[in-house]
């Protein structure tokens, strides 16, 4: 899973590429650490090339969502492939994370 983070105006753009699973979730947590800091975050996560996530990945997105809410920010996930979207739908994560 490749994670790239960049800033554009007041927005933080995150691009995910690959599979997020038990083998790389610890590294992923380190990679997204910068997103856990700062007031009023405005985060957009491009998921077009995220091909897979397991519950390990869901845990990370829930943790991030909670952190963003606690800092009065917003976060959206965009471009999910149908199979990944289904995982978010089944687990109710589509209701707690904004997915476009």
């Amino acid at each position, binding site marked *: 899973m490749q994670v790239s983070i960049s800033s554009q105006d007041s927005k933080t753009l995150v691009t995910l590429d690959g599979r997020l*699973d*038990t*083998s790389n979730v610890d590294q992923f947590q380190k990679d997204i650490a910068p997103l856990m800091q700062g007031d009023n975050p405005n985060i957009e996560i491009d998921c077009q090339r995220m091909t*897979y996530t*397991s*519950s*390990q990945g*869901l*845990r990370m997105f*829930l*943790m991030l*969502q*909670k952190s963003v*809410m606690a800092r009065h920010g917003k976060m959206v996930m965009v471009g999910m492939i149908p*199979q990944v979207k289904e*995982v978010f739908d*089944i*687990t*109710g994560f589509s*209701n*707690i*994370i904004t997915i476009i």
Partner: protein
Amino acid sequence: MVKKRFNPIKDKSSEIIEFLMSSPDMPDDEALCFKLRLSIEEAVDNVVRYAYDGGIGWLEVGTNLDNDQPVLTIELRDAGTPFNPLDRDDPDVSLSADERQIGGLGIFLCKKMMDNISYRYQDGNNILTMTKKIK
């Protein structure tokens, strides 16, 4: 049909998952393989992380394809602490982010992705069997 016993299993989730995903019994269907990989990862990771104190122990995994149906069966067997993952209540998927607990999603995903999951404790082993109809 393939079967293999992994020992030790600490930090070996990926190796065990890839062993099962490369079984000749796996269908040639990307969407179906996504669901199978997810179920396999959740089930395998559950044993690797929690079945044995300190992660020292073995896990035997196998696949079997019944061509008549056709139905794929995936079985996991370990000698860890007796634990029926199906006893756990499903997470409440209607809760808000604040109320949602981290965890408890893995076996729930298995249940949703597979057609059937059963657990039995036999001869000192936890045995989890998952089946999926293959088109």
